[in-house]
C-alpha cells in the first residue's frame, strides 16, 4: 500500500517550541518518525495527551483572577498557573500522515500550548521524549530568536 516515495516521508513530525522564561529565548526540538515500528511506539503517548483541551484557543488567559488584595491569605493562595510569571510556555505541534483522512503530503496537524506549570502527565512525558530523542533546532545568528 505504501509507495517508495511515501516511505521516505516521515509518518509523524513532532516539534516542541519552548518560549518565555526570564530570558525570553525560544528553543526548539524536532523529531521525525519514519519507521512504522517507531511510530507505534510514539502513538500511545501522543494519543494520551489532551490536545483538544490544550488547543491554543482553549488555553485560558493566564492572568487569572489573581488579585490578592488586602486580606489575601498566604502566599501561593492563588492557583498555580494563574499567577506564575517568567515560566516557560511549551507549544507542541504534531503532523501525522497516518491519521484517518490524512495522507503523505497532507498530514493531520495538531497544536497545543501548555504552560510549564501545567506540564505534567503525558504532556511532560511527550515533551521530555522529544527533547531527549529529537534534534535541537538552533536559533543561529542568521535567524532571530523568535518567529516574527
Amino acid at each position, binding site marked *: 500500500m505504501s509507495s517508495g516515495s511515501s516511505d521516505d516521508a516521515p509518518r509523524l513530525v513532532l516539534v516542541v517550541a519552548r518560549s*518565555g522564561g*526570564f530570558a525570553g529565548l525560544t528553543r526548539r526540538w524536532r523529531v521525525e518518525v519514519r519507521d512504522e515500528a517507531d511510530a507505534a511506539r510514539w502513538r500511545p503517548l501522543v494519543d494520551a495527551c489532551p490536545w483538544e483541551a490544550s488547543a491554543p484557543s482553549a488555553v485560558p488567559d493566564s492572568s487569572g483572577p489573581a*488579585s490578592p488584595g488586602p486580606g489575601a491569605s498566604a502566599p501561593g493562595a492563588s492557583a*498555580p498557573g*494563574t499567577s506564575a510569571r517568567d515560566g516557560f510556555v511549551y507549544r507542541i505541534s504534531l503532523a501525522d500522515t497516518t491519521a484517518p483522512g490524512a495522507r503523505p503530503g497532507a498530514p493531520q496537524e495538531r497544536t497545543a500550548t501548555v504552560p*510549564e506549570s501545567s506540564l505534567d502527565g503525558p504532556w511532560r512525558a511527550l515533551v521530555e521524549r522529544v527533547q531527549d530523542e529529537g534534534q535541537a533546532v538552533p536559533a543561529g545568528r542568521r535567524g532571530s*530568536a*523568535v*518567529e516574527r
Partner: protein
Amino acid sequence: MARPSVGYMRRGIVPPYLLSRIAEQAPPTFSVAAEAARRALTLDAPLRTRARLSLSVDETDGLVAEMLDAPDRRIHDAQNREELPGVIVRREGEEPTGDVAADEAYDGLGSTFALFSEVYGRNSIDDAGLRLDGTVHYGRNYDNAFWDGGRMVFGDGDGEIFARFTGSVSVIGHELAHGVTQYTANLVYQGQPGALNESVSDVFGALVEQYLFSQDVEQATWLIGEGLFTPQVEGRALRSMSAPGTAYDDDVLGRDPQPGHMRDYIDTVDDNGGVHLNSGIPNRAFYLTAVALGGFAWERAGQIWYDTITAELSPTADFAAFAAATLDAAAQRYGEDSEEVAAVRGGWNGVGIDVERQQ
C-alpha cells in the same frame, strides 16, 4: 541621603514593655518613635511583620528611635529537584550558609526589600510585611528563574549558556517585583499588559541594582541579568533597557530580539504574546524618562512608575493607557507644568507613543 545602617533584627529583641514606654511616655520630640512603637504593639497576631530599631542623634542632640520595616526572608534549597519549596536553609537573621546561590538570594531579597521600603515606603510585596520566600537549586541545569505566585524560584543554569540565576541582583529584583505587581496593578500576563508586567519588573529590577550600588543614570548599566551568560556566550546580559535588541548577538543564541520602538512591535503567539520581547518598548520609555531627569533614577522616574502601578490602573492596560497613567502620576505628584511631566511625555514619544493626560 543617609541610609539606616542598623542590621536587621528579630522583632522580639525590642521587648513589649519598652515599646509600651516609648508609645506612652515619649516626649513630643520623639513622636515618630512613639507612633512606630504604637504601630508595632497593635499588629494583629500572629505577627507577620518584622521591624528594626534605628537609633540616631538629631541636630539638637536628641535621641531619635525609629521602628523601621524589616524583611522576613526564608530561603529553601530544591536540591536539584523540580519540587517546591525544598528544604529550608536560611531564615531571617541567620548566618550565611556558605552556599553561594542561597546567600545571593538572601542578600538580593534584602536589597529589593530595601528599595521598596526605604524609597517608596512599601513594606514588602503586599505592603503588609509579607514573608519573602525564595528557592534555589531548582531542577537540574535549569535555565530559568520565575515567580510562581508566592515565591521566587532560581535555577542553577546549564553551565554552558547560562550560569546561576541568582548571580544578578536585577533578576532577583525582577522576580520580587512580579509579586508587587500581582498585589497592585495585577497586569494581565498576555500581549501588551503582559509586556508592561514584564517591563515593570525590569524597571524595579534595574532600580534595585542602581540603589544598591548608588549609581546615577549615567553610571547605571541599564542591563537586566548582567553576568547570567557564561563567558562562552557573546553577550553582556539578557536585556538592555537603554538599547533594546543589543544585549547579545551569539552564534548559538542568535541576536537579542527586543524592539525599542513601536514600529518594531512583534506579533507572536509564543511567550504569552511576546511579553519578554515587546517589554523593550516601555523599558526604553522608562530609560529615556530617567535620563531626561538625571540623577538617581529611583527618585523621580521610579517614583512616577511606582505611583502608576499603585494607582487605579486597569489590569488590561495597553501601552497607551499605561503611558497616560504615568503622565497622570507625574502631574499629580509634581504638577502639570513640571519637568517631570515633560520628561515622561518625551520618554513615550521616544518609543513612538503619543501620550496625553486622561484626567
